[in-house]
Every structure is written in structure tokens, then in C-alpha cells.
């Protein structure tokens, strides 16, 4: 049940999706992998939207060079763990939700446990190694993975629904080379908002998800487009062979 305070806080968005929609958000648990450029705007907006439980995982410390884009962290936070900084900001911006932070490096051995009973995983990572692990967990747990990636003024996003859409491995079988990528804060801000919107739509059951669609954004040209995607039946993660093996086990 929503409290009177919550009804007032969410009044303007409940004009869109009513008590039922707001209850759905309140009862949801979203796992946000990363409290950096993408994770900052995503966690802020999911917090103010009233997602009942947010788990934010990061292993890093706030650095001066993060502050052009990682808006969860302030100048005064330099040297603090990003999880501590994120927890403070998210609790301050919405004390009516539960914020859990975990200072950890996501790897294949702990990812299942970290994600726990979350209803969806937000990919706010900066590398494909961890993204592939999150993809595996999403497929195993049959929960969506909200993917985003950025470089410079350019970004991409898609929503992966296990058994229904191409998974991250189907779409990107091989990662791009590692690099110190250039970035200006507006790009993760923009792509993060696409991902956060996808989370809300998924939880509310409304609209049309970026399912089997890769959204690509060129900020320099202010041009967005999308590319149709399809599952790869031979995919090593979600392909038919893999699923058959899993069913036999």
C-alpha cells in the first residue's frame, strides 16, 4: 500500500499509471551494475520514480576525473568509495525507498549472489567482460538486462528479455578492444535515460520495449536510429543447443 506521503510524492506520475503502476514500482527490486557515468543518472531517476529497492554495486573510489559525468559524486566525495557516495545521495533524494549498496567487483563467482532476487539488471558497466557475466546471470535467472554503452558523443542501448530477444552475446559476440574511452557527461546522461525508461516500461508493462532493437545515438548529429536484431540460434549463451543442454540437466 502506498502511504499518503508517497501519493503526494508521486502524484504527477501516477496521473500516467495510477495506483497499480506505482505499487508495481514500489514492489520492484532493480540491480544497477555500476555507479559511474551510466549508473549515476539511472540510479537517480529510478530512485525518484519510486523503485522500491535499488541495489547498486561498484568497486571503485571517486576520482576527480570522474566528475565530468558521474553526477552521483560531488567534489567533496573525492577519495570516498563510490558506493558510500551513491548511498548518501540516493537516500537523500528519496528516503521512501530502500537503497542497498555493495562494494564489490562483479565476477563470474559472485554475480548470481549479488543480483539475488532482483527483477532486472541494469548494465551500467564500462567493459564487456562484466557485461557478458551479467548477460549470463540474466539468462539464468530469466530476468531482463537493460544494456547501455557509450563512447564520446555516441551511445547504444537495448533491452534483453531472455527467451524472447537476442542476448548480449548474440548482438555482440566479440568485445571491442579495451581503451581509455573519451566521454562527455551528456552522453551517459542520455543513454542512461533510455535505459531507465526501459526499466520503468518493463515494470509497468506499458509501451514498447527496445526488444530486438539496438537503439543508437549520435549526439554530434542529434541523430537516433535503430537496428533490428534477432537471436542467434547458435549463440553460446542463449542458443537452442545451450537451452537443450540446460533442460536435460
Amino acid at each position, binding site marked *: 500500500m502506498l502511504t499518503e506521503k508517497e501519493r503526494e510524492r508521486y502524484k504527477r506520475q501516477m496521473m500516467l499509471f495510477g495506483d497499480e503502476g506505482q505499487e508495481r514500482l514500489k514492489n520492484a527490486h532493480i540491480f544497477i551494475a555500476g555507479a559511474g557515468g551510466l549508473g549515476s543518472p539511472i540510479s537517480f531517476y529510478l530512485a525518484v520514480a519510486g523503485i522500491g529497492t535499488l541495489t547498486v554495486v561498484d568497486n571503485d573510489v571517486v576520482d576527480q576525473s570522474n566528475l565530468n559525468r558521474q553526477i552521483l559524486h560531488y567534489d567533496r566525495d573525492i577519495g570516498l568509495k563510490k558506493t558510500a557516495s551513491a548511498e548518501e545521495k540516493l537516500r537523500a533524494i528519496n528516503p521512501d525507498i530502500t537503497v542497498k549498496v555493495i562494494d564489490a567487483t562483479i565476477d563470474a563467482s559472485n554475480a548470481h549472489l549479488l543480483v539475488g532476487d532482483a527483477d532486472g539488471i541494469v548494465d551500467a558497466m564500462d567493459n564487456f567482460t562484466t557485461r557478458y557475466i551479467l548477460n549470463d546471470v540474466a539468462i539464468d535467472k530469466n530476468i531482463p538486462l537493460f544494456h547501455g554503452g*557509450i563512447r564520446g558523443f555516441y551511445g547504444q542501448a537495448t533491452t534483453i528479455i531472455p527467451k524472447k530477444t537476442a542476448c548480449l552475446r548474440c548482438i555482440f559476440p566479440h568485445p*571491442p578492444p579495451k581503451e581509455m574511452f573519451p566521454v562527455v557527461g551528456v552522453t551517459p546522461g542520455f543513454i542512461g535515460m533510455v535505459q531507465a525508461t526501459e526499466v520503468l516500461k518493463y515494470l509497468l508493462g506499458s509501451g514498447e520495449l527496445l526488444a530486438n532493437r539496438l537503439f543508437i545515438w549520435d549526439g554530434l548529429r542529434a541523430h537516433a536510429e535503430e537496428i533490428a536484431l*534477432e537471436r542467434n540460434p547458435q549463440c553460446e549463451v542463449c542458443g537452442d543447443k545451450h537451452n537443450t543442454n540446460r533442460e536435460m540437466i
Partner: protein
Amino acid sequence: MTVKVRFFARFRELFGGDIITDVPEGASFMGMIKEIAGMNREGYDAIFDDTGAFREFVILMKNGKRIDCANAVQTPVADGDEIAVFPPVAGG
């Protein structure tokens, strides 16, 4: 025949945006991209490896459909085709 080639992300920085190119009948996907990429050494090296094969992370699309890099040699292009060549972006 005329084909439109669209580069994205880092490839767009190296080649510019959309390239409209005239290609001979029977041209292959691979041959056409190599010819365009040959205009820019850094761009060529970003897309192709030392053996002249597409780097494995490169994503190729023809008229919105994915083309496997391994099949790019055999895949013909036709008048009016729209080709997209792009790398995934990894930052976050």
C-alpha cells in the same frame, strides 16, 4: 550501381558519416568496404586485421540485417543497398 555505406561511432570519426559510393556489378560486401577503408590507413586498421579479415568485433549490417563477417566475401551488394559498419561501444 549505388550503395550507401554508413559508419558509426569510432568508425564515423575516421571516415565521416554516410558515404554514397558507385560500385561495379557483382561487387562483394568485403571488397566494397575494403576499397572505402583503403582511403584512410587508420580507419582501415580499425576495421581489418593484419590478414585483411574483418576484426572480430566489427558489426556488419545490410539493409538492417546482420551479415556474418566470415560471409562478407561471398555476400554481394546490390543497387540501393544500405550498409552499416560499426563497433560496439564499451564505455559506461
